[in-house]
């Protein structure tokens, strides 16, 4: 959504940065933006040129003693470079990895100078607060989370897209009123909020007012404002594995718990979804997840186990099914599916038997065939070959 703001209203950010510079006595503003956002970059450049032309940026703004200018710094899209110290290192031309705080950027930031780091959405609120006043802004939202929040609504929902809602709105309002309910009339299962290192909220959270505090208390977070709706067809173990896969890709590698721990979490989830999980794997996930949260260097590692921990909290039954019954109720885990031949539909043509690479199918001509599940490698060749729809995939 930050990209949308930069593309749609770049001047709001420039104005907010100038106001910020005026407040803290800064003369230099930097926008760190992914090089993969060419449209946002183009529009920002146009806006900066316009602002300079109007005397809104540059030397002696409005004829005052205040001077402020903005330059763009391009990033290569590393997720961790959203963490402010990593962002600053990247801007300085160093490896994009975080460092310990303190010192906070406000003490020693870009090139060792005191630096105020804010994200696009925060800044976009500033001009309107200045215009309409703090009281107006405070009138929206909850006691501790003021104003509005933009969410990127996605997943199994009828209306996807960016929504701006007042803080304190419930998940039910977002999903069923704004989002128009679950696609194809399916049953709501969970909503994943806060981006890849957020957590999953379930039916029991549907009527919780959404603000920073309540999301954290529920084991998730506001994070990037991502909101992905999941329905009954989604496997929660696979969902956790998917997000951990992203984290493993995006860990910078600086601290051991994030670098190795998330890899091990991902591998363990891989074993469980492949039907090779054991009860101790669940204990391992929980201990590892909490240690990674407790010991990681930056916000990425401190939140990365959230998808695992929150699904363990809310969907333990699915984990247990995967581990003990080797069953994935939503049929998402391919390794847990098995092929069966319907006794009624099979005419005993032997086509499947001939094509099976592991000789897992037995049966005489014109008699119903049977698949030996211990030998079957689930390649699907038999189902493809069967002309009588006698073979199906079961979970």
């Amino acid at each position, binding site marked *: 959504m930050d990209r949308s703001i930069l593309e749609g209203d770049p001047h709001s950010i420039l104005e907010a940065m100038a106001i910020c510079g005026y407040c803290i006595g800064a003369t230099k503003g930097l926008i760190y933006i992914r090089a993969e956002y060419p449209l946002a970059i183009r529009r920002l450049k146009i806006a900066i040129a316009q602002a300079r032309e109007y005397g809104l940026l540059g030397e002696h703004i409005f004829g005052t003693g205040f001077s402020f200018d903005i330059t763009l710094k391009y990033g290569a899209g*590393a997720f961790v470079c959203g963490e402010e110290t990593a962002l600053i290192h990247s801007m300085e031309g160093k*490896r994009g*990895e975080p*460092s*310990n705080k*303190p010192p906070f950027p406000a003490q020693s930031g870009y090139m060792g100078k005191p630096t105020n780091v804010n994200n696009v959405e925060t800044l976009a609120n500033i001009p309107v607060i200045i215009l309409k006043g703090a009281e107006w802004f405070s009138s929206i939202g909850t006691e501790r989370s003021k104003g509005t929040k933009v969410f990127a609504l996605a997943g199994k929902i009828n209306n996807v897209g960016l929504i701006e809602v007042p803080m304190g709105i419930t998940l039910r309002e977002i999903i069923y009123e704004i989002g128009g309910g679950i696609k194809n009339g399916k049953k709501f299962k969970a909503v994943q909020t806060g981006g890849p290192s957020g957590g999953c909220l379930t039916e029991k959270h549907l009527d919780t007012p959404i603000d920073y505090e309540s999301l954290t208390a529920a084991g998730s977070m506001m994070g990037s404002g991502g909101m992905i709706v999941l329905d009954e067809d989604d496997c929660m173990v696979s969902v956790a594995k998917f997000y951990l896969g992203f984290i*493993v*890709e*995006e*860990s*910078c*590698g*600086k*601290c*051991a*718990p994030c*670098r*190795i*721990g998330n*890899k*091990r979490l991902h*591998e363990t989830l891989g074993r469980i979804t492949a039907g090779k999980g054991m009860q*101790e794997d669940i204990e*391992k996930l929980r*201990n*590892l997840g909490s*240690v990674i*949260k*407790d*010991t*990681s*260097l930056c916000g990425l590692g*401190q939140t990365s186990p959230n998808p695992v921990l929150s699904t363990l909290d809310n969907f333990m039954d699915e984990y247990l099914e995967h581990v003990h019954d080797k069953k994935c109720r939503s049929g998402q885990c391919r390794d847990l599916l098995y092929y069966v031949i319907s006794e009624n539909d099979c005419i005993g043509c032997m086509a499947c038997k001939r094509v099976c690479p592991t000789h897992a199918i037995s049966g005489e001509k014109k008699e119903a065939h049977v698949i030996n599940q211990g030998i079957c490698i689930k390649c699907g060749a038999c189902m493809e070959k069967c002309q009588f729809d006698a073979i199906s995939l079961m979970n």
Partner: protein
Amino acid sequence: MIELTIDNKKIEVEEGTTILKAARKAGVEIPTLCHFELCDMGIENKPGGCRICVVEVEGRRNLAPSCMTEAQNGMVVHTHNIRVLNARTTVLKLIISDHPFDCLVCAKSGQCELQSLAIQFGIRSQPYEGEQSRYRKDTSPSIIREVDKCIMCRRCEMMCNEVQTVGALAAVNRGFMSVVAPAFEMNLEDSPCTYCGQCVSVCPTGALTEVDHTNDIIRALSDPAKTVVVQTAPAVRAALGEEFGLPPGTLVTGKMVSALRELGFDYIFDTDFSADLTIMEEGTELLQRLQRHLEGDPEVRLPILTSCCPGWVSFFEHNFPDLLDVPSTAKSPQQMFGAIAKSYFAEKIGVNRKDMIVVSIMPCLAKKYECQRDEFKVDGNPDVDYSISTRELAAFIKQANIDFLNLPEGNFDDPLGESSGAGVIFGNTGGVIEAACRTAYELYTGKRLEKVDFHALRGMEGIRSATVDFDGLPLHIGIAHGLGNARKLLNDVRAGKSQYHAIEIMACPGGCIGGGGQPYHHGDSEILSKRIAAIYTEDERKVIRKSHENPSIIRLYDEYLGKPGSHKAHHLLHTEYFPKSNEVTFNLM
């Protein structure tokens, strides 16, 4: 001062103290892994990456890395409750899960800090089995990189970039595949690496080790057709004893000689001898340049820079290719020894140079590279065949089952084993220039130098300057140890701002006593100070303290070389330097 509580102990510390240091003050030892410090030299590595030193701070959401969290007034810290111990053990098991299990054959076994932690934590199982990060093994003339064993502590990176300013090593790749390597994971040999070996000296695991030449030497020793000659560098005798449990700073010169004799070397000589020879050549060059400078010759360049240190030579070839005429052309003592051994000495004992093997025992890893340089070969035959480190010699002695501690005190052989105190102090920062002053003073003034100890030139500060009175001529001397400090002095030389007549540079912090081939100090800078003191003790014990008074040196010039700077001396004892590129050159195919 602030007051905090660590494990129920109240303790007062100065503001700005980390929890780790406060705990140590309170007698509470917190285990660390990536943290590394040589406190006397202002060298500290604390990226906060390993997370082994985490502690619980009451009121804080997550655990705090004690190495980089500052103590606050009223803080209550727990260093070993269940939460902390579980976190530490889990993180250690994670690190081990991405580490090869080849401790039995690892070069670092017994010295590995990861292994020590595993023992300390009582790790008996590996619950987090999974993929291990694998990398190409990289062998250079001096250093082997086996970065499967890299734990991303970043100590080598800090040494290479912040202390040495060489810039050969940095973290590359992301996430699980992160590792410290030269840019684009090119070979170390193609990088600006100087082989100073400081990365090896701080690596906690076996990721960075030296190239081991012990087997080549065993082969040479067992070949009856070969005459095997060994030379030992000054700094070795002040550190070798540590490998046999002796306290740091114990001099083991005599035992070292006896051990080498037991190992079967035919002639045991001393690099201190060729250090004296270096002084004769370098000191003469200094005086000649100084004389011309004082006479107003605009072509002569001052300051003159010492050239004994091969890491330093590589460094200026890489980084100051425009200043190649500034360093002395004198070869290093190792190479002077090799050149003399395979000419003067070989002729004396009637051995063909091809049948002579010259081995050097060095505190240094760059020496391995130096002896392989083409300019130090005659028809492909190197002046020095193999250079092994203090550590390799210790391992060799242990392998040969020699009872080192009970060896008699042996004596070096003649004629290349006799040395002055000036040759000994080559091992310390400031030692080469002090040795040069002892000789240059007498040659320049024609007077006898009564007080040979130049205390102004000694010390541990990274950059030192002193003025030595040459009977009315104030000789300005600069000293730098650590290549980062050298760079500062060289930048001044390049800018024409340097006021010095002579500058001594040693690549390693502390000089050769802190070389990359010395016994591991594990961050204890007191070990370095004790080695320095031992070297000065050895100097004081010597009857002859000045290089030009070494009778074997006098005889060498009389019988063979003529006088310092002669044509023959130049041919055998001087070298030239070559510009090297710092550009990244790698083949994409």
